[in-house]
């Protein structure tokens, strides 16, 4: 057992939830509540198991750690190879944390097909964790797609009124992107075979392949499209408001908290590593789309009347910031973007959770149905305020650190004007979030129904409190987190720039150009 945890920790992390999901099947229908608790216990156990990833992870080491290698389809060189590095370690932990929190929240809220719900959630965790730690493209793709199925069910079965539309839209959008990526992966593997005579889908094998510039662009775009849809980047974002809005609260938390990050993660892990030249060439466009996302997402969020939609569009805006940081490609911007992904997971997760608290009581997401509830549900209000200020980047909370580093890094890059535009996001985010706060929690209490609202229960309070603690932790001691991610990011950045320059790209990224002439 000890050896299993030492040598195969990642495997255990990935498949413990899947095994848990299978075991949930053993519960009879009459024991639905026990099944819920069991699933929660499994996810908590998984979180406990993931703690060594934090304690034993060597932040100074930029490469993969906790590595596992096994043959999977030897004929095609497809391997079961896992590992975490600075790029994925925090996202893994975020996943193992948010899953139990979501399940805890759902403990008192999901009543329909409880066992299936628990199973879907655990399988989702398996899918997410798998795609975060896979080092083989085929393996990654499998997990990447597997993720969709439980999420489809979560939205479709336990969602709101337009859940089916939202679920289909979610599935089709994401699938549309990843199918082209699938072909691109196959192309790379075939290329590897053509060059070396052997099949391989391993990232490190495919990374150095000589590929003609034009082809590389096409492949890069295929990958980028898949990831851009997932993030989502304007104008591919329209699945997100629907999916977020219709998903049950727990689903929204995971969707916002982790799933969207996988797009950015994929871009960093695969887009940059496989196609450094193209990634550098298209970086300005990436950043520009990010900026559009920031402003556009914020403005559209402001126009919303539905709380969840507002928060959903705010995700578009926040992820736009992350994307911009990646486009800028300075070390500070990358650190900021990476940290901001975690921040967004926490703050938006918390916002969805708190909106869920209200929704589960009143069964409406319309802001107009609320107003003045601060006096009725002070604890909810307090948490909501903290989450809001985390979301709009108030110093002392997590959001600020990520935002500031991203802005600063972008300012420090050749794309200074991006920052000039993007910083306006701090105004816009205040506008829409405070409008939400005002309309829901403040203003006169006009709806009699709201007087009967009850404040948060323990199963809602605990997840919210955990999230708030983390927000403060990251806000006050960001170095604990930056130290884990920076070496990997810096190594990734250096390799990418070096390979771009070595490849003699026609128009290297200005950052790369700048680095060579200090």
């Amino acid at each position: 057992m000890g050896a299993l945890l030492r040598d195969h920790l990642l495997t255990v992390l990935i498949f413990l939830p899947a095994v848990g999901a299978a075991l949930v099947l053993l519960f009879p229908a009459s024991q639905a509540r026990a099944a819920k608790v069991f699933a929660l216990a499994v996810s908590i156990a998984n979180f406990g198991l993931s703690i060594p990833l934090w304690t034993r992870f060597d932040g100074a080491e930029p490469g993969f750690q906790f590595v596992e290698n096994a043959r999977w389809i030897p004929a095609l060189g497809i391997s079961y190879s896992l590992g975490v590095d600075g790029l994925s370690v925090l996202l893994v932990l975020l996943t193992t944390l948010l899953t139990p929190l979501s399940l805890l929240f759902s403990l008192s809220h999901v009543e329909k097909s409880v066992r299936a719900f628990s199973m879907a959630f655990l399988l989702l965790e398996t899918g997410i964790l798998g795609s975060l730690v896979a080092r083989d493209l085929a393996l990654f793709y499998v997990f990447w797609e597997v993720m969709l199925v439980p999420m489809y069910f979560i939205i479709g079965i336990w969602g709101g009124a337009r859940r089916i539309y939202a679920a289909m839209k979610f599935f089709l959008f994401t699938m549309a992107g990843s199918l082209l990526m699938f072909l691109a992966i196959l192309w790379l593997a075939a290329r590897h075979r053509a060059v070396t005579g052997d099949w391989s889908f391993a990232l490190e094998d495919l990374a150095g392949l000589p590929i003609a510039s034009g082809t590389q662009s096409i492949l890069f775009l295929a990958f980028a499209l898949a990831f851009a849809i997932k993030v989502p980047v304007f104008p591919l974002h329209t699945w997100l408001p629907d999916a977020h809005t219709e998903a049950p609260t727990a689903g929204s938390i995971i969707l916002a908290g982790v799933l969207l990050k996988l797009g950015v993660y994929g871009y960093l892990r695969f887009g940059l590593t496989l196609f450094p030249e193209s990634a550098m060439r298209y970086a300005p466009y990436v950043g520009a789309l990010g900026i559009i996302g920031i402003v556009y997402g914020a403005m559209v969020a402001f126009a919303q009347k539905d709380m969840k939609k507002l928060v959903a569009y705010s995700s578009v805006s926040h992820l736009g910031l992350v994307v911009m940081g990646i486009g800028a490609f300075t070390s500070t911007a990358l650190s900021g973007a990476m940290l901001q992904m975690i921040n967004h997971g926490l703050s938006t997760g918390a916002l969805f959770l708190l909106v869920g608290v209200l929704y589960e009581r009143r069964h409406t997401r319309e802001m107009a149905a609320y107003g003045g509830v601060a006096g009725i549900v002070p604890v909810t209000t307090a948490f909501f305020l903290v989450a809001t200020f985390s979301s709009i980047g108030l110093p002392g909370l997590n959001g600020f650190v990520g935002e500031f580093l991203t802005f600063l890094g972008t300012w420090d890059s050749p794309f200074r004007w991006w920052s000039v535009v993007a910083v306006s996001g701090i105004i816009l985010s205040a506008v829409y979030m405070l409008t939400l706060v005002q309309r829901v929690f403040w203003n006169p209490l006009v709806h009699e129904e709201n007087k009967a609202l009850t404040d948060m229960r323990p199963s809602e309070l605990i997840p919210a409190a955990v999230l708030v603690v983390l927000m403060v932790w990251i806000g006050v001691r960001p170095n604990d987190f930056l130290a884990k991610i920076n070496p990997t990011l810096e190594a990734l950045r250096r390799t990418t720039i070096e390979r771009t320059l070595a490849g003699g790209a026609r128009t290297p990224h200005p950052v790369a150009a700048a680095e060579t002439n200090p």
Partner: protein
Amino acid sequence: MSLWWILALPFAGFLANILLGPRLGKRFVSVVATGTVAAATLIAFSRLIPFVSGTRETVIESIGSWISTDRLSVDLALRLDPLSALMLSFVTFVGFLIHVYSVGYMHHDETDAGYARYFAYLNLFLAAMLVLILGDNFLLMFVGWEGVGLCSYLLIGYYYDREYAAAAGRKAFVVNRIGDYGFLLGLFGIFTLFGGFSYDAVFSAAAADPGRYAPALGLVCLLLFVGAVGKSAQFPLYVWLPDAMAGPTPVSALIHAATMVTAGVYMVARCNVLFRLATDAMMVVAIIGGFTAIFAAVIALAQNDIKKVLAYSTVSQLGYMFLACGAGAFVAGMFHVTTHAFFKACLFLGSGSVIHAMGGEQDIRKMGGLKSKLAITYPTFLIATLALAGIPPLAGFFSKDAILAAAFAWHPEKAAWIAKLLWAAGLLTAGLTAFYMMRLVSLTFHGAFRGTHEQEHHVHESPRSMTVPLIVLAFLSIVAGFFGLPVVFGEHANWVEGFLSPILLPLAGLAAEPHHLSHAVEWALIALSVAVAAGGLWLGWTWYAKQGGAVPARIAARYPAAYALVAERFRVDELYDALIVRPFVALSRILWKVVDVLIIDGVLNAGAFLVELLGDLLRFLQTGNVRNYALGILLGLVALMFYVVSGF
């Protein structure tokens, strides 16, 4: 004790009150809130007194690194130097007084939860303000800067169930964020120029080699000043401050008069090294300050809400301070910050006492004759008014005079006439200030009572917890000025100038201090400003206290348009609404309904629909008639045959 305790204590008070306060009751909350602030004040003075009496060497206390990446390293460090010491002294002390005052002011109105919330926010505010003034780098300043903004937001919206209060809070935060936009970009500029955020590093680098940084500094300083414009309510971002009066009155006194709004001035003074290198930016600061001073003073002339008058007065006085900074008189600016803190806090608290007595009434047209009934409030209010008007030897006289003298003495290289114009504006503002303050006093305390009978019956003096702070602040409004005597009283009469001079780092290669005015000119200026102030007071007294407002009413009736424009605050809010808010709302709706729903989703849904439609059409190829199926097979065969064979 460490400087960190000074801000940790109020923060601890915040935590205790927000978490436990609602359950443990008002007594607990009062004790914790005032107790922590009192302790913080004591610690602050226990550090200040040795500092002032000692060598006054800058102290930096770091507790480790906050953010570090390979390009950026920011420490969690606090700094005690003359400038932060000056701020620290009055922030803690006034903060403490206002906590005490609030115990009385808030005691009856609120539920336990509301009471706890109020004091929690107030404590948090103090902690944030202390971070702002004690922080040793720009980033910590920004932390405090945003923190006080947060508390301001929370406290303005304290009466959350009143829509205007909630809206005012939001407005304050958003407008401040507009300022922060500039401030942040300014910080980025500093990072680009100096590679870090630590004060020492930035300022000593700039001072040592001004020529290297000067070209870009103009823009950086302007961006920083945008932040100050937002935080310190200068034109054109002043609009949030009058609305902020929706919060409880002690909040207005503490945050929106004495401390937070002066953060902008503090920041400019802190960055004096940079600003002095950017003369164009200095000019902008002075112009904005001077214009705001007179603009707000004019608006104050025609306001009838007691707190609104004071709010515009605050805006106007902040303009003064920026005028001073712009003219290079950072010491005068900071001196005015200090004295203003005392008398304006006193005025606000006095107005709070009046409102308290009037049962919540704020319209001065419905007051009158309160001087006999409010035996402590009236004299303290009057002293503060005279101080604000600039009557010697009260505090305001010295600080205001220093600013006017500095403006007069200012000789910018370009457009020197603007300096003189700004001086004239300052002088006029002094007269206007005296006038509208006297109008306020006259209408509130003199004449006959104009309110309802119930109100008349209800009027009473406030409890001791409220009156004692008034007395203390009135006393300070009298004596504080003596720390900054004009140079005519001796070369070293200006203690404040001597105290603050270490922050004015000498700039290599630039001319030293601007020349001082001769004593004769100085005396003439003093006489002039006293005359203007006295004239204003006299006019206000005559028109309102003695004649009951007939003359101004006639003037208003003769120029109705002009009067309405002033009374309606030049309709700036309406202008912003039409130019910015409405287009923004409309644009966001268009982006949502047209771009998102109609175009993007429309195209995608149409694509999906077309495929389905195609399916619906193509299914009719399946006619059910088996002969058609056979024909399909044959046609397929023939087509394949023709295509393939034609290749041979």
